C-alpha cells in the first residue's frame, strides 16, 4: 500500500507541525482582529474573491443552461399567450403612466411651492444573482456586477416587487449583498397608510421580518404596506419593503410584537435592480417640515 510507504519515508512525523500550527492560528486571530476592526483587508478579500469567481461561474452554469433551455423550448402558443398578456399589461401600465405624469407634474409644482428640491428619478441597472447564501446567520447573495460597473458598498438592491437588500462588499466583477432578512440588517421604513416611521429588522428567516420598535398603542394593522423612508441615506425613499402579517399587542410589554412579510420574493428572484440613487440629504429635511 502507498500509505505504508509514506510511513517508512518519514516515520509518520511532519516536521515542525506544531510550530506551523501555532503560527497559522496566530495569523488567523490577527486577520480576524483586523477584519473586524476596520476594512483594511478589503483588497485581500477582493483578490481572493476574484480567484473564486471561475468556480462561481461553473456552479451557475447548469442553472443558466436550464433557463436557456426553458426559453428555447417554450412552445409557440405559450409565447403568443404571453404576448397578448404583455400587450394588455402594457395598455394598463400606459394608462397608469399618463396619470403618473400628471401627478409628477403636480408634485413638482407643489414641491417648488414648498421650496424643496424636485425628486430626480433613480438610475437603475439590471444585474443577475449568481448565488444565494441562506444559512440563518448569514443571508447574503452574490450578484453579477462589481466596481467595474459602478457598484459601491451600501448600494440598494431592489427586485420587481420590492427591496431585496444592499451591497456590503463590492468586488471587481461580482459583489456580495446582504438580504433584508439577514439578522444583522435593519432598514428605516414608514407605513404608507399613515406615515408611521419605524425600523424593520431581519429575523434570519427568509420570509419574515420583524418590527421591534412599535409601541403597543401605535396605529398599525395587518396588511399595512411598509415602504423605505429614505432616512439613513442608504435607501432611496418610496420602495415597498414588506406587508405587516401579524400584530400582537402585549399589555405587559412596552412594545408590540409585529412581523411582516417581505414584498420581494427573496428566494425566487433571479434578476435584481441596482439603484444609483441621486437623492441627497436636503430632501429629507424638506420632508420633515
Amino acid at each position, binding site marked *: 500500500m502507498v500509505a505504508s510507504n509514506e510511513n517508512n519515508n518519514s516515520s509518520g512525523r511532519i516536521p515542525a*507541525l506544531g510550530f506551523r500550527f501555532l503560527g497559522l492560528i496566530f495569523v*488567523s486571530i490577527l486577520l*480576524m482582529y483586523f477584519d*473586524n476592526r476596520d476594512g483594511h*483587508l478589503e483588497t485581500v478579500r477582493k483578490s481572493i474573491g476574484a480567484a473564486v469567481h471561475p468556480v462561481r461561474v461553473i456552479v451557475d452554469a447548469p442553472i443558466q443552461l436550464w433557463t436557456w433551455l426553458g426559453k428555447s423550448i417554450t412552445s409557440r402558443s405559450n409565447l403568443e399567450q404571453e404576448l397578448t398578456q404583455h400587450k394588455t399589461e402594457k395598455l394598463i401600465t400606459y394608462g397608469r403612466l399618463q396619470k403618473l405624469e400628471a401627478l409628477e407634474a403636480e408634485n413638482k409644482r407643489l414641491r417648488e411651492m414648498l421650496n424643496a428640491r424636485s425628486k430626480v428619478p433613480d438610475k437603475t441597472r439590471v444585474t443577475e444573482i449568481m448565488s444565494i447564501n441562506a*444559512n440563518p446567520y448569514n443571508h447574503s447573495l452574490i450578484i453579477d456586477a462589481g466596481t467595474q460597473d459602478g457598484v459601491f458598498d451600501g448600494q440598494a438592491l431592489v427586485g420587481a416587487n420590492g427591496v431585496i437588500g444592499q451591497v456590503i462588499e463590492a468586488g471587481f466583477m461580482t459583489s456580495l449583498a446582504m438580504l433584508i432578512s439577514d*439578522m*444583522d440588517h435593519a432598514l428605516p421604513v414608514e407605513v404608507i397608510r399613515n406615515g408611521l416611521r419605524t425600523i424593520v429588522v431581519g429575523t*434570519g428567516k427568509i420570509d419574515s421580518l420583524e418590527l421591534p420598535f412599535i409601541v403597543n398603542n401605535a396605529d398599525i394593522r395587518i396588511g399595512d404596506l411598509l415602504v423605505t423612508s429614505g432616512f439613513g441615506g442608504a435607501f432611496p425613499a418610496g420602495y415597498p419593503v414588506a406587508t405587516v402579517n401579524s400584530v400582537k399587542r402585549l399589555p405587559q410589554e412596552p412594545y408590540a410584537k409585529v412581523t411582516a412579510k417581505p414584498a420581494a420574493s427573496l*428566494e425566487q428572484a433571479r434578476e435584481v435592480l441596482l439603484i444609483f440613487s441621486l437623492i441627497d440629504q436636503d430632501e429629507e429635511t424638506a420632508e420633515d417640515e
Partner: protein
Amino acid sequence: MNSHYTFHRLPILLSFIIGLMLTIMPLPEVIEVFRPSWLTILVIFWAMQLPQLWNVGSAWIIGIILDVSQGTLLGQHALAMCCVAFIIVRFHLIIRVFPILQLTATVFPILVIYQFLLFWVNGVEGVNAPLITYWGPVISSTALWPVIIILLSKLRNKA
C-alpha cells in the same frame, strides 16, 4: 518532496473544486441548514491520507477561500480548518487504520470541534444564530461520511 506526490495533486485539487461548488451551490432553505460541510470532510480525508502533502497550511488556505466565498470574518473558517487538520495529522497513524464505523465515530467529535470554533468566533463577533444551524452540518456530514470516504478512497487509489 517525493515524485509520487505530484500524482496526488490533481485528484486533491479536483475534489476541492467540486467541494467548493457544492458549498456555494444555492439550496432551498429547509435543506440549507443541513448542508454538509464538504470542505471540512475533504480536509479531514486528505490530511488523514496524505499528511506529508496536505496538512495545516493547505487547510488554512482552504479556510481562507471559504471565508471569502461565505463572506464571514476573514480567518474564522481558516482557524477552524487549521485546528481540524492539526488534530487529524497529529493522530493520522492511529485514525487511518480504524474500521469505517469507528472512523465515523471519530469524525463526529472533530466536526463538533470545528462547528464549536465557528460558534465561538461568531459569539465574539456578536453574531447570534440558533443552535440547529451548527448541529445541522455536523449531523449531515457524519451521516454522509462513510459514503464519501468510499468514493474518495477510490479516487485516491486511482491516482
